[in-house]
C-alpha cells in the first residue's frame, strides 16, 4: 500500500508540484485582489454617505448570501455567456476562479474593515485631531495600525477560505492541486493515500497562513 503510493508519488511529483504551484498562485492573486477591493469598500462604507453605504451593503449581502461554488459557476457560465455576447471573448477557467474567489474575499474583508474602522473611529480620530493631525495623517498613523491588528485574525480566516476555495475550481476543470489528486487517486486506485496526502498538504498550507497571521499580530503589537 505504501510502496505503490511512494512509487506513484515519485512519478507524479512534477504534476503535483505544478498544480500545487497553480493553487498557490491562484490563492495569492485572489487574496491580494480580494483584500484590496475589500479594503476600499470597507473604507467607503465607513466614511461614505448613505448612498455609498447602501450600495456596499447590498453588494456584501448578496455576495455573502451566495455560496462560493455558486459564485464560481455563475462567473464561469453566466459572466462568460454575457462576455461572449457583448464583448466577444471569454475568461479562462482560471480567470473565472480568481474573479469569483476575489469577489468572495472582498465581501468579507470589507465587512471586517468597516467594523474595525468604525470601532476605532470616533475616539481615536478625536484624539488625533486634538493633537493637530489632519485627516489622512490620522488615518495612516492612528487608525490603520490599530485596525490592522483587529482585522488580522478574520483576515487569516478569509485567506484560508480562499485556499480551501481553490478546490472548488476542480469542478470547472482548473488544473489546480485538488483535481490532480482526484485524477491520481482514481487512476491508481490509491484513494486513501492520495486523499490523505492532500489533507496533509492543505493543512500545511492553511496552517502556515495561520502562523503568518499570528506572527504579524505580534509584530503589530509592539507599540
Amino acid at each position: 500500500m505504501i510502496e505503490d503510493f511512494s512509487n506513484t508519488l515519485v512519478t507524479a511529483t512534477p504534476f503535483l508540484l505544478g498544480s500545487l504551484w497553480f493553487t498557490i498562485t491562484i490563492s495569492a492573486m485572489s487574496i491580494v485582489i480580494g483584500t484590496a477591493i475589500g479594503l476600499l469598500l470597507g473604507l467607503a462604507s465607513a466614511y461614505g454617505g448613505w448612498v455609498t453605504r447602501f450600495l456596499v451593503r447590498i453588494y456584501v449581502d448578496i455576495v455573502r448570501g451566495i455560496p462560493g461554488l455558486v459564485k464560481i459557476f455563475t462567473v464561469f457560465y453566466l459572466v462568460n455567456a454575457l462576455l461572449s455576447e457583448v464583448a466577444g471573448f471569454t475568461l479562462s477557467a482560471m480567470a473565472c476562479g480568481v474573479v469569483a474567489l476575489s469577489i468572495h474575499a472582498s465581501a468579507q474583508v470589507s465587512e471586517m474593515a468597516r467594523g474595525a474602522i468604525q470601532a476605532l473611529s470616533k475616539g481615536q480620530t478625536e484624539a488625533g485631531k486634538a493633537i493637530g493631525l489632519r485627516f489622512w495623517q490620522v488615518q495612516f498613523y492612528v487608525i490603520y495600525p490599530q485596525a490592522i491588528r483587529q482585522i488580522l485574525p478574520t483576515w487569516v480566516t478569509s485567506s484560508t477560505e480562499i485556499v480551501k476555495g481553490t478546490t472548488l475550481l476542480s469542478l470547472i476543470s482548473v488544473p489546480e492541486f485538488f483535481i490532480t489528486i482526484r485524477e491520481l487517486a482514481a487512476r491508481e486506485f490509491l484513494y486513501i493515500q492520495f486523499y490523505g496526502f492532500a489533507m496533509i498538504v492543505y493543512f500545511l498550507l492553511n496552517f502556515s497562513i495561520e502562523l503568518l497571521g499570528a506572527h504579524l499580530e505580534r509584530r503589530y503589537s509592539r507599540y
Partner: protein
Amino acid sequence: MNYHFNWKVIVEDWDKLMWGLLLGLEIAFGAIIIGLVIGLVLAFASHARQFWIRAAVKVYVTFLRNQPPLLLLFFAYFVLPRMGIRIDRVESVVLALGLYAGAQLTEVFRASLANIPKGIREAGLAIGLTPVRTNTLVVLPVMFRNAIPALGNSFISLFKDTSLAAGIAVAELTWQARKISTDTFAVLESWIAACVIYVVACMIIAQLLLALERKLKIP
C-alpha cells in the same frame, strides 16, 4: 444583445430547484446536529485534566478546520467505502460537513465557556452541587444560550457549504441549477435564479435565527 430571456424553463423546473433547496437544508440540519454533539463534547473535553485528551482535541480541531470541505466530502465518499464503511452520497456529505462543523463549533463553545465567570461555577459548588451537576445544570445552559448567535452563523455557513454536494452529484440546489443551465442553455436565467434563491433563503434563515435567538436569550 441577442439574448432572449427564457424564464419559462425556470418556472417549469421550479419544483426541482425547490426540492434541491430542501435537500440542502436537510443536509445542513443533519450536519449541524453532528457538529453540535461533537462541539459540546470536545469543548468540555478541552478542559480535561489529562494532557492527552486536551492534546487530541486540539489536534482534531486544528487539523479539521484547515481542511477544504470539498476534500473532506470526497474523502468520505470515496475512501470510507474502501475502509469497509458503507455510506451513500448524501450520508457522506452530512458526515463530512458534520465533522467540519464539529471543529468550528468546538471553538465556538470553548469561547462561550471561557466567557462564563468562574464565580458562577463556584456558586453552584457552594450550594452543594457536585462538579458534574454544576456543569450540567448551570454551566451548560448558560454556555449554550450565549453561543446561539455564533451557532446560527455556523448553520448558515453549513447551508451554503451544502452546495459542495453538487461535486459528487447530489441533487441539491446547485446541481439542479447547473443541470438546467447545461440542458436548456438558459445559462443566465438558471444562475440568476440559483443566486437569488440562495440569497433569499439565507436572509429568511437569518431572520428566523434572529427570532429564535431573541426567544432563547438569557434576559
